[in-house]
């Protein structure tokens, strides 16, 4: 199992946001997390990324602990351990958060050269290949502000994927896309999952998109996962 999250609890002050949720993502699998606004979807993913510390529960990525609960005591990965785990993780935020002072190419190469210490020419090659695969070959020298929303998002995907993560999370990937681009996003994500074997965890409100992209759908409600559906079951529910 690539990602396993078990019995997560998380409260902000006295509002319980995650109330005993468990989920998992396999290699090459696309799992969607759906549910009403405020259900706790983003918080769950942020816990996986180590951006938020859950109060209780156990999260493993390829067997490495992001957090671990034993005898009711929750311990979190140290900075160093987290850095190691994050080599397997990628996240595309709803607002993309590209680095505005860098070109598209630099946005994608910076982690390769500075974190992974890959020589510049090699990093450039890898980044250009990734950008071309995502249809951005002609934008490599542009600044993020010169791109459309959909293009920015693809740069964010390239930036996350160029380091070969095993698990890629998306928060609302279709929120800013028109329907043609949504279709494209389905293809991009499926390609990453099937060709590269990346496990993908998606937060989305967009039922059609979820139907087309997912292998499995988790329905969340008030901090709990209330239903877990296969792609087929989700399609049937949508028809009904």
């Amino acid at each position, binding site marked *: 199992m690539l990602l396993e999250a078990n019995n997560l609890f998380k409260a902000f002050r006295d509002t319980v946001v995650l109330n005993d949720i468990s989920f998992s993502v396999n290699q090459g699998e696309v799992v969607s997390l759906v549910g009403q606004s405020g259900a706790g979807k983003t918080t769950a993913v942020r816990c996986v990324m180590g951006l938020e510390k859950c109060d209780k529960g156990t999260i493993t990525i390829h067997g490495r602990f992001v957090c671990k609960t034993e005898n009711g005591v929750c311990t979190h990965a140290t900075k160093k351990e987290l*850095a190691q785990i994050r080599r397997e993780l990628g996240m595309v935020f709803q607002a993309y*958060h590209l*680095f*505005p*002072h860098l070109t598209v190419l630099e946005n994608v190469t910076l982690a390769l050269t*500075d974190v992974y210490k890959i020589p510049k020419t090699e990093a450039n090659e890898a980044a250009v290949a990734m950008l071309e695969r995502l249809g951005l070959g002609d934008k490599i020298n542009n600044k993020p502000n010169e791109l459309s929303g959909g293009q920015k998002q693809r740069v964010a995907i390239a930036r*996350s994927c160029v380091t070969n993560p095993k698990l890629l999370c998306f928060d609302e990937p279709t929120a800013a896309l028109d329907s043609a681009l949504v279709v494209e996003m389905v293809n991009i994500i499926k390609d990453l999952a099937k060709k590269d074997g990346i496990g993908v965890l998606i937060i989305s409100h967009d039922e059609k998109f979820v139907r087309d992209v997912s292998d499995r759908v988790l329905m969340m409600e008030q901090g709990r996962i209330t239903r877990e559906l296969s792609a087929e079951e989700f399609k049937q529910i949508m028809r009904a």
Partner: protein
Amino acid sequence: MQILDGLGMTLGVFALSLILSFPLGIVVAILRLSKVPVVRKITEIYIWILRGTPLLLQIMLVFFGLPSIGIAFDRFDSILIAFVLNYAAYFGEIIRSGIQSIEKGQRESAEILGFSSWQINMKIILPQVIKRTLPSIGNEVITLVKDTSLVYAVGQNDILKYAKGVANSTGSLVPYVLAGVIYLVLTYVITKVFNEIEKKVNYEE
């Protein structure tokens, strides 16, 4: 021209203060935003004191005051210490506000990409902060040029000191006007330099 001898001192105080206080200001900003409450609080108090009292008082305190408790610096060093500490507080606050103006998602994205805090600050946050705060930094640098005239109060021979000396011995207004013109030229040059830097780093966000 005696007054030009003073120019060296004025420029020296200006340049050294700037070169030393700006990096220190970055450090102050980072400490001011520290996750450790004590560090944050101490930095806050430092900023409060340095910005809340006149620079002239600080210069005098270092040069005339500290020797009474056995810490003595020479005239120039005293001036420099006061200027650097004072301007680091101002730069620190400007940079802090700049850091806080950058959405935290960029930092989080960078964390997940594996960058260390130091790399995030230096490669991602700071370049944007400098761009965003350039106008305020420019203002501060111009104020610094003019503040160098305070060194006159502890008897350092800057432009103003010479101007006064010449004016006293000749009874003429000209030295003061000349001093004013020199300050104007300096601030003009700084304004131009900052305009150029702003053009260079300009990109829409």
